[in-house]
């Protein structure tokens, strides 16, 4: 710069030939040129500029024309700030220093927001007047923007960290960013490759440009720009009306004009190698976008992406956790976890219900508190085996509830690991098999019992057959007798089946046994109190009543229309007394041989009822008296 100054002919300028320059100018200039700090001298009435190499880039393309030119001509853009400051120094003869002074320079056509630290020092001549002003300083725009960006990111981080709604978080972020940019619209959009759209999820506008929240074709701003974005390239358009990437596409410029869009900055976010989202700033005026602004969009875009991803993941996790918790809490099965010392670390309400404790109180207790002492070694062995061999084990064990109830639990358990893969305990699902085992046991007994009954019934049928088909009995008559006996047996079984084989009332038994004979005009009358009879005794009684009816129909009261039978019973002193009395039939005589029917009544019935049966062949009508202790014939009362 010294060269340039020396080379220049200053004689026709207000400076005059350098040889005539006052000492103050010379010595100041010498200091200036030697300084490595950007330094300029504003000299004389018009504050004409002299400066060193370090200062030369500050006015941009105005260098080298600025050398020797009046300050006001060089700095029309910032004169509003600089003019008064220079005037102040000249008037007061006092220097001033400013930090981070904003100077809206227009070095490259468009206004730029620039920041400067500088000092203005008066150069006082021999006459005591200010003859010039020394300026030293440097641009700190980057520092200011960087600090702003850091502050913005701090704000965003604290804001986004607590956000639980992705859409709201994005909108807040975009609104927080907007004041930092010379833009009328700022937004964030997500790319959907499948349908080739960009969905603007957050958009801020000052009203000059339209809100573009929603989905748009991915190449809405032109194919060329879209291709660049897909390559991960930042799009910075100074003036849409003149940018070749826009003017080269037919109709695109008009579309921009219709949207009122004049310049824009778009930063693509590449995730997993794919163009996934974009952060954009749009303006209705031409703008020279700076690296700072690019960096700002980039970082904010990334923060939004991360926050949205985190919020979505957390929502999914919450949902999945809620889902699993619901399953565990409503499960009928018992679910619990323990540590390696077999202390319960978690369990569900079903565990509480089974162990008769609020399930929160089970946590912290040792598993052994609930185990049958006899099973302790077995349980410890199963745990050891699981830790050694891994995998899932299934075993049954006796558990004792807080209420003392013993249960058989089938336990399925698997090892639990921490994040480092260390075994920290077990997760187990248990099912109370007690009822199932009891049921199996009952069923086994029932099947045995059924088997026994079937065999016994077959033996009974065999007896009926043998007694019916006796030698000397007419086969047709025998068949008839056999069938009616079988029918009586079946009727008694039907009755008992209806009562689940828990017994039948005497009234019902009599009605069933005499069904074929009661008839037309109510020849049979039965009276007595309600009394329940056990199945065995019921079958015997039914068969005996059947034989009595058959005998009456053949030889007794039921052989004629005039005959009547009254069946009456009482219960006294723990005894049942039942009387069968026939009247109005043919005269009765003592039979010479008792057939199976009457024999059965006397012998079988007496034996089955553990009582007495007396037959009285009164000529006026057959009488039969049955006496049996209630405890032999009534169903066992269940306790």
């Amino acid at each position, binding site marked *: 710069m010294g060269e340039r100054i020396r080379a220049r002919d200053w004689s026709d300028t207000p400076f005059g030939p350098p040889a005539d320059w006052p000492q103050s100018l010379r010595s100041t200039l010498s200091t200036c040129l030697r300084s490595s700090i950007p330094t300029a001298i504003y000299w004389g009435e018009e504050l004409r500029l002299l400066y060193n190499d370090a200062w030369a880039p500050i006015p941009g393309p105005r260098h080298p024309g600025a050398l020797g030119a009046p300050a006001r001509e060089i700095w029309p853009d910032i004169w509003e700030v600089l003019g008064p400051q220079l005037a102040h120094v000249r008037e007061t003869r006092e220097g001033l220093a400013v930090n981070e002074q904003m100077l809206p320079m227009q070095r490259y056509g468009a206004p730029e927001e620039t920041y400067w630290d500088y000092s203005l020092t008066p150069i006082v001549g021999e006459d005591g007047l200010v003859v010039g002003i020394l300026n030293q300083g440097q641009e700190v725009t980057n520092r200011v923007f960087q600090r702003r960006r850091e502050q913005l990111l701090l704000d965003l981080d604290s804001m986004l960290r607590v956000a639980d709604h992705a859409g709201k978080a994005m909108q807040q972020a975009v609104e927080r960013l907007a004041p930092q940019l010379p833009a009328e619209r700022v937004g964030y959009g997500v790319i959907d490759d499948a349908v080739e759209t960009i969905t603007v999820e957050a958009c801020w506008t000052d009203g000059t440009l339209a809100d573009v929240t929603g989905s748009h074709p991915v190449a809405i701003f032109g194919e060329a720009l879209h291709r660049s974005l897909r390559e991960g390239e930042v799009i910075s358009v100074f003036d849409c009306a003149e940018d070749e990437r826009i003017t080269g596409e037919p109709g695109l410029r008009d579309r921009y004009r219709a949207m009122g869009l004049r310049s824009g900055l778009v930063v693509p976010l590449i995730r997993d190698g794919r163009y996934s989202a974009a952060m954009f700033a749009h303006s209705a005026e031409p703008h020279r976008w700076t690296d700072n602004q690019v960096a700002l969009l980039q970082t904010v875009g990334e923060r939004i992406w991360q926050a949205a991803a985190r919020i979505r993941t957390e929502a999914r996790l919450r949902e999945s956790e809620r889902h699993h918790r619901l399953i565990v809490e409503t499960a009928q099965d018992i679910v619990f976890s323990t540590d390696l010392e077999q202390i319960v670390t978690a369990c569900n309400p079903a565990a509480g219900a089974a162990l008769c404790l609020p399930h929160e109180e089970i946590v912290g207790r040792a598993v052994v508190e609930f185990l049958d002492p006899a099973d302790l070694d077995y349980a410890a062995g199963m745990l050891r085996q699981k830790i050694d061999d891994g995998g899932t084990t299934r075993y049954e064990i006796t558990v004792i509830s807080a209420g003392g109830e013993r249960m058989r639990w089938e336990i399925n358990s698997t090892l639990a690991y921490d994040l480092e893969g260390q075994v920290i305990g077990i997760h187990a699902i248990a099912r109370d098999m007690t009822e199932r085992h009891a049921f199996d046991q009952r069923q086994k007994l029932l099947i*045995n019992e059924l*088997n*026994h*009954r*079937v*065999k*016994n019934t*077959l*033996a*009974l*049928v*065999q*007896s*009926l057959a*043998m*007694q019916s088909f006796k030698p000397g009995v007419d086969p047709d008559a025998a068949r008839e007798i056999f069938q009616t006996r079988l029918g009586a047996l079946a009727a008694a079984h039907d009755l008992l089946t209806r009562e689940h084989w828990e017994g039948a009332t005497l009234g019902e038994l009599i009605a069933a046994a005499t069904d074929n004979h009661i008839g037309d005009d109510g020849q049979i009358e039965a009276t007595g109190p309600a009394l329940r009879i056990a199945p*065995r005794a019921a079958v*015997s009684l039914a*068969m005996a009543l059947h034989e009595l009816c058959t005998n009456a129909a053949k030889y007794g009261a039921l052989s004629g229309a005039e005959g009547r039978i009254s069946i009456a019973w009482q219960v006294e002193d723990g005894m049942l007394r039942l009387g069968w009395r026939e009247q109005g039939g043919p005269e009765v005589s003592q039979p010479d041989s008792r057939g*199976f029917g009457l*024999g*059965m009544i006397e*012998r*079988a*019935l007496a*034996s*089955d009822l553990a009582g007495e049966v007396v037959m009285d062949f009164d000529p006026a009508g057959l009488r039969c008296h049955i006496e049996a202790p209630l405890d032999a014939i009534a169903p066992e009362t269940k306790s």
Partner: protein
Amino acid sequence: MSDPPVGRRVLIVEDESLIAMTAEDMLENVGWRPVGVATSCRSALAAVAKGGFDIAMIDINLRGEDSGPVADALAQAGIPFIFTTGYGKARVPERHREAGIIAKPYDARSLDAALQAAAR
């Protein structure tokens, strides 16, 4: 039918009297002589104590009661016996597994064969 009564006297232990009656008929038809029917453990034990029979046929289940004690008493008295059952072999007490067994419903011939085998 020409065998003398002694050695052919049978005690029937059976709670179902119709079946007992049929058994009596069957026994008579194949030359045995039924001499009594016991319908419970208690009456059967009384009959064993009293004696007067040479062989017994015992229903395994007597009104829900196990007839094992009756078999024990018979074994102790040295009186041969067979089991009659609707349950199959499973319900025969372990200590009497050697005893003869006949499944209900049985016929006269198999009853006879089982008694003959037990009497030997």
